[in-house]
């Protein structure tokens, strides 16, 4: 009898403590205010220069170095940025965004090749407009394919892949908050930057002074 009571009392105390711990945990996770930047965000990363650079490298292997006029379109991919509670940031490209970026890159490549061939013809003394045709038709006649088809099948690979983008723009960082600012440290280089942040609904803007990153909630 006495042993039953003792057991009952013991179990009660353990239950109370457990429930308290669970309650406090739940409070901290779900109820207590967390930092607004915690979570997963998406930002655009321009890779236009990577695309143009690859096209230039292919064109400049020609004997005559021709500066082509590129269209103004930008090629962008999504970077996924995750802030966790432990003070870590990871940045990585979103492979799903590469498809649409690739289409834009293709258009840039076709325009560059067309401009290159037009300028080469001019260098040889032939004005395309005087031929009553255009580069596309000349290529059709010569190879049975358009500029777009040639670039797609036989042209240089100018759209960077995820690995190439991550090599330049992905990374891991640590952060801590001081006086309402984020101190972000690159874990590879140790470089430290101070950034301000503003979070408004599903948008976040982080400014490091020279660079401004706009994030959307994922």
């Amino acid at each position, binding site marked *: 009898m006495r042993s039953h009571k003792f057991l009952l009392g013991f179990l009660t105390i353990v239950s109370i403590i457990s429930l308290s711990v669970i309650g406090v945990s739940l409070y901290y996770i779900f109820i207590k205010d967390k930092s607004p930047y915690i979570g997963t965000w998406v930002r655009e990363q321009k890779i236009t220069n990577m695309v143009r650079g690859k096209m230039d490298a292919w064109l400049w292997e020609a004997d005559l170095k021709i500066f082509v006029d590129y269209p103004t379109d930008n090629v962008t991919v999504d970077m996924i940025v995750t802030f966790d509670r432990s003070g870590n940031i990871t940045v990585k490209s979103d492979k799903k965004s590469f498809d649409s970026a690739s289409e834009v890159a293709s258009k840039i490549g076709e325009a560059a090749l067309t401009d290159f061939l037009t300028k*080469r013809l001019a260098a040889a003394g032939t004005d395309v407009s005087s031929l009553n045709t255009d580069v596309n038709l000349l*290529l059709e006649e010569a190879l049975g394919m358009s500029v777009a088809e040639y670039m797609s099948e036989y042209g240089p690979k100018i759209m960077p892949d995820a690995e190439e983008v991550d090599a330049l723009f992905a990374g891991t960082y640590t952060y801590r908050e001081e006086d309402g600012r984020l101190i972000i440290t690159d874990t590879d280089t140790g470089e430290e930057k101070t950034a301000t942040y503003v979070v408004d609904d599903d948008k976040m803007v982080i400014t490091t002074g020279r660079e401004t990153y706009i994030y959307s909630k994922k």
Partner: protein
Amino acid sequence: MKIKTKIITSLKYICIFILTVCITFAMPLTAEATLETYPEYLRNIPVSIVGSSEGNVKAVDLNYDENTYISMRDMAELLNATQKAFDIKVTYNSVSVTSGVPYEIKGGENVPFASNLRDEKDDPYNRKKNAFSIDEKEVSYYTIIHKNSEGVYDCYITPGDFALLLDIDMWYNGDVLNADPDSALNLNLKDLEADGYFEGMNAVLLGDASSGEVIYEYNGDLSFPLASITKLMTYAVVMDAVTGGRISLDTVVTFSENVEKLSYSVDHAFHMQAGDTATLEDLIYGSLMQSSNECSLALAEAVSGSEERFVEAMNLKAAELGMSDGTFFYNCNGLPVFSGGVFSGKKQNHITAEDLFILSNYLLSVYPRITEITACSEKYLESMSRTVMNSNPMLKNVDDVVGLKTGTTNKAGSCLVSAKKVSVNSENRYIVAIVLGAEDGAFRNNVSQTLLSYGTKVLQAGDGGLLDGASHIDGGAESKKIPRDAESLARLIVRKTIK
């Protein structure tokens, strides 16, 4: 003692006699052994004239088997009653053919050679570029002139040249040489290639300059020396400078010491003194017609200040025109260039037949006035007080040939690029025939004329269509090669526009 002396003397005389007899009889044996080592080069070929007669014509295999030259008198006699009847007059150094008239029998026609071997006392059968005319028009063929058994001068010519001369279809059927006087020469380049006709050349190309289409090519993309054909590129760069306003055709050019020195070298056309002058236009005529290396150098220096800078412009022009890496220039005239030093090497300008076709098309379309120069047989250059002559044999042999340039060095062989105007449905089009590296002028001329004949018939067959039995050789090969680099792609597109 006396008897002994007499015996010895007698023995001496007997020995001398025996020795003399031996030598006398041994010589013919030796000679006969020597004769047996001569190849049989006189033979009699059975000939069948379609729809007419049959017979034998005398033939000379010049130095080698199948390097055959046939008797024109024998052929004239066999063709007498046909559409291709012709008369021929032959002197010790000239041949004159009149087509469409009966042949006047002189004696010895179709009398076979009595023996395969040339009589030791006979004159040799030497091949030369004897004076030759047909219907009073001077032509250029390599022939053998030799008296026949009746002492009448006869002319021997290759069957191929004979067929081209009279535009008569000829072919071998086994050992029998056939000729069809009712049929024009019917060439099939595919068959000729299979028979090894082009193997003696470095490269050959026949193209329609008006469309840019290659009709036939043999080793067309391989790089070979081009000798004086270089001067076509020299002309292109000079004319670019003229049209660009940097210099004019009337510019008076002063010859440098370099020009004088070259004009006194072994490869000169004429002497030019430093300080003397000539107009740019006259120098162009001298360069293209007489293939004057010194005129080319004077042009280069006038345009660019130095030959080195001019050659840079030539190589840049080659790149601009979409030419391949197989085309490069060291100088403006095509002479061999020695590298200098203790171990001095010899270099020469190179080109591919395909690239030469590009250059020819470019000149014909962008600077068509070139044909006024290259089609000219003779021209008096006022500023140089001299007359220049054109060395292109096709101007004589083929109607409507408008150029373009010969070229010969030991390494390059005998080269020629010819352009011919062909009238197709009231439209004037051009065909270009390129021969690089023939062993000698005779081969070069024969192949060039064969290509021009074939090309003319191809164009006149309509819409660039091909004769029966023929087909495009390597035609369309361009379309099967997809260039993977920017330079090759650019060159392909540029080539497409050169018409």
